[in-house]
């Protein structure tokens, strides 16, 4: 076993930084735990969940996709270099790593998105196994587990009561990481701590089956009444990838940006002519649930939810997709009786 003393996590971050990685890690920031670029000396938080997801570093909330120089009525395209620094996502969670399968699929299923792919190729994912969970966690209901390794290049498993971390690597990126860690790693034995207990909250297969038959159901109104349509759930979601394209410009230059967007917002589907296919918030909340648990599985053979629970932690109205799914599961079971 390759072991790292837990108190040397900061040293690992420093070693990675010295090896040329931009290190992204959960740190205290403005009163919350946030994934952002680690600065020397900062404590990496291992006992709480970051409010934002790893998505932020693969699909930034705003990025330039085209740039023009303008002269009078003429314009000329400028190069748009892809910003893809070599990055280590250190101590993200198994539910973050699991989300990459959905993201990789969307950005490559037909046309390939070079902005996403360049960052993805430059990113090494090091998860920290979960030994605790909170009331919002539901990875086990979304095909994941607190000690899952899907999507990770390396995992750190807490051991010996959290005093050590056992490093396991997968593939070249993982090995490069271990090489960068160098002497911080020691061979030895340790007792891996038991993974967190994450109780099952719903049966995802039953939810998917119910969704396929229930586009029209009174349940949609009931479960969405509290929704403010703020979009916080989507912005925190590791798999929500929908975006808008908007231009900003003046008489000298124009920049075309891709910005996060979400089906929860009224204008998302509004036609210029006034027609809006999803006219009320229940239709928009239904789309969010349908997309993650029915359409994405139908199209790509996987859920677009990893059970990270961020949406529920953040929702100002106290809603949670896990609760909607649990309600659907109950409805499906009641219908069978």
């Amino acid at each position: 076993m390759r072991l790292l003393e837990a108190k040397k996590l900061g040293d690992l971050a420093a070693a990675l930084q010295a090896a040329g990685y931009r290190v992204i890690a959960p740190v205290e920031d403005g009163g919350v735990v946030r994934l952002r670029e680690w600065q020397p000396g900062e404590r990496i938080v291992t006992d709480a969940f970051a409010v934002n997801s790893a998505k932020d570093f693969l699909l930034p909330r705003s990025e330039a996709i085209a740039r023009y120089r303008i002269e009078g009525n003429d314009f000329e395209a400028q190069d748009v270099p892809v910003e893809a620094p070599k990055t280590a996502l250190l101590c993200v969670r198994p539910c973050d790593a699991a989300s990459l399968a959905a993201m990789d699929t969307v950005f490559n299923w037909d046309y390939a998105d070079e902005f996403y792919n360049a960052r993805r190729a430059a990113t090494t994912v090091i998860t920290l196994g979960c030994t605790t969970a909170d009331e919002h966690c539901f990875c086990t209901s979304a095909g994941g587990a607190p000690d899952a390794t899907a999507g990770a290049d390396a995992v750190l498993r807490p051991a010996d009561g959290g005093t050590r971390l056992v490093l396991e690597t997968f593939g070249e990126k993982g090995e490069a990481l271990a090489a960068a860690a160098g002497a911080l790693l020691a061979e030895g034995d340790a007792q891996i701590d038991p993974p967190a207990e994450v109780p099952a909250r719903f049966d995802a297969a039953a939810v998917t089956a119910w969704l396929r038959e229930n586009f029209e159901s009174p349940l949609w109104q009931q479960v969405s009444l509290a929704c403010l349509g703020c979009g916080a759930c989507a912005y925190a979601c590791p798999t929500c990838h929908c975006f808008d394209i908007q231009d900003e410009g003046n008489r000298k230059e124009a920049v075309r940006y891709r910005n996060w967007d979400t089906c929860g917002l009224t204008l998302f589907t509004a036609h210029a002519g006034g027609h809006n296919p999803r006219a009320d918030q229940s239709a928009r909340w239904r789309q969010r649930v349908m997309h993650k648990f029915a359409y994405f599985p139908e199209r790509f053979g996987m859920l677009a939810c990893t059970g990270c629970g961020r949406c529920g932690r953040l929702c100002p109205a106290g809603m949670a997709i896990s609760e909607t799914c649990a309600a659907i599961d109950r409805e499906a079971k009641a219908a069978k009786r």
Partner: protein
Amino acid sequence: MSGNLYSPTLMRIAEARDEAPDVRTLRLEFANPAERERFFAKYRVGMFGLYGLPGAGESTFCVASPPTRTEYIECTFRRVGRVTAALQDREVGQTITFRGPYGNAFPIDAWKGRSIVFVAGGIALPPVRSVIWNVLDRRDEFGRVTIVYGARTVADLVYKHELAAWAKRDDVDLVTTVDPGGETPDWKGKIGFVPAVLEETAPASAGAVAVVCGPPIMIKFTLPVLTKLGFAPADVYTTLENRMKCGVGKCGRCNVGSLYVCKDGPVFTLEQLKDLPHGDM
């Protein structure tokens, strides 16, 4: 594929025509001949593109000209917002941006020997017009061609010159109509709503396909008429006009059920649409 997926090509405005109040057609030529070749190698009728102006943004319209006319493309659109206003304010000789062609196409090669009934309303003639042109450019390959087109008023009819040209052809049956109250004193066409005029025209459905584009309310009342006339759902084609941004199956905006209208559409048969969530269209 590699390279910036969202990087458009440049088009020069060769011609601009006003079709109706706030509706204009732009004839566009590729600034780069290699881009023209790349476009026409892929373009089939029904596909769409994103037309844009740096600083204003991009909008999604059909390509209103057919693959049988390979010197240019045309788009016809109404001025409704920031991008469409910016595009309409461009002058002949100036450039705009274009990405495409995207999406699927009308399978017109599979229609050889069959009669075709075109039904369109208002600003929805452009996507149908490219198919009409394509069929008329290959006239011998198809049976009877019937066109039923209506708008709210005479002024709102688009492509007036082409309507006049089609009316003169003896290998095209053209019926034009305007909504009651939308007629002018010298209006020679029908007065009535498209579905009713279609029913009265009663084109034969045997061996025929129908292409229908129009506002949701027109579609809603036209489809039962087609059914009554004997058109099978698999022989009725329409386009979905969901809002789009990327055009390439990423941004998620045009999803209807598990489909991406930008990739799986915009062309669908009634047969395909019947299993989709209509609340998302």
